[in-house]
């Protein structure tokens, strides 16, 4: 359950961001989570919803997850393609395994909505 640690780190960062921006309340947190990040979204939200109750500035904060698809670009034929195969993706154009990841590893806080 690394999601608990990640949620704890996120709460620390949100606290810092809120104080830097003189926010009185955090209402919304938008995250970008790639399909290949290894973060279990439900676990992260579950952990955050428990931890946030101890932090008055974010007790009513909601999380919105922007799930980023897994996209590769083929180094042999330059095809860009989306795939569900997180283990051994192959190029849809030429079946090559020689690929570069374009998106899907994201584990970011995108933006935060606050009241000031």
């Amino acid at each position, binding site marked *: 359950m690394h999601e608990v640690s990640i949620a704890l780190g996120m709460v620390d*960062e949100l606290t810092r961001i809120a104080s830097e921006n003189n926010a009185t309340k955090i209402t919304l947190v938008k995250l970008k989570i790639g399909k290949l990040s290894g973060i279990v979204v439900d676990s992260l939200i579950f952990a955050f919803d428990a931890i946030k109750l101890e932090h008055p500035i974010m007790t009513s904060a909601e999380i919105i997850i922007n799930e980023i698809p897994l996209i590769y670009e083929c180094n042999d034929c330059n095809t860009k393609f989306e795939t569900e195969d997180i283990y051994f993706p192959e190029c849809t154009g030429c079946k090559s395994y020689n690929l570069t990841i374009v998106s899907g590893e994201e584990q970011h806080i995108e933006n935060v909505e606050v009241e*000031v």
Partner: protein
Amino acid sequence: MCDTCGCDHDHEIKDSKTIDVNQSLLKSNDEAAASNRKHFNEKGIYVVNLISSPGSGKTTLLEKTIEALKDSISIGVLEGDIETELDAERIRAKGVPAVQLTTGGACHLESALIHKGFHKLEHQLDGKKLDILFIENVGNLVCPSFFDLGEHIRVVLISVPEGHDKPIKYPKAIKTSQVMLITKTDLVEHFDFDIEKTKKDALALNPSIKILVTSAKTGEGLDKWFELLNDALTGK
């Protein structure tokens, strides 16, 4: 009474705004890791982070490594576990300084704890310089792969009894490691473990991973492991 106009109810005059953040969820650990790495570099210490499932042979590998190398290089160990001092005691019994880091439930080590543990280890060193610091992570193939500790290499152990499907079941552990040790190969005849398949799967996930096939029991492949460490120390 409200401060704005002196009437006796609150006005909803709060402004809301969106703050662009665009930073990693693991930022605080990543920053602490960078600071650890800088510190280790300044001191000239090469740091190895060992990750595996529980019981894959991390502590045994360290014991063998210490036996073989402790006369030629100075070794220190940080032992991560959820509870108990047992592994640190095993290491100290080999005559090498060790600090136990108990996470009290967490299934991985984080950089802030490594920082504290390293300073504790320095007390045991009495000014002696370390060449290499081993960190034995908490037995878990998932969570440790998210947390950079400031190490120079991450080494993942997959033992024969665990089964050869481990690389594809735990791709992040393979992708974030630079070295993979297949351990307990003395047991290979008792298990349905295909060493070549394991290597192939790991290389498909991480084409640059270096793979060693080892047994702490028979000593198979350990010379290659020691050579890898010596090469790293001499900057080859």
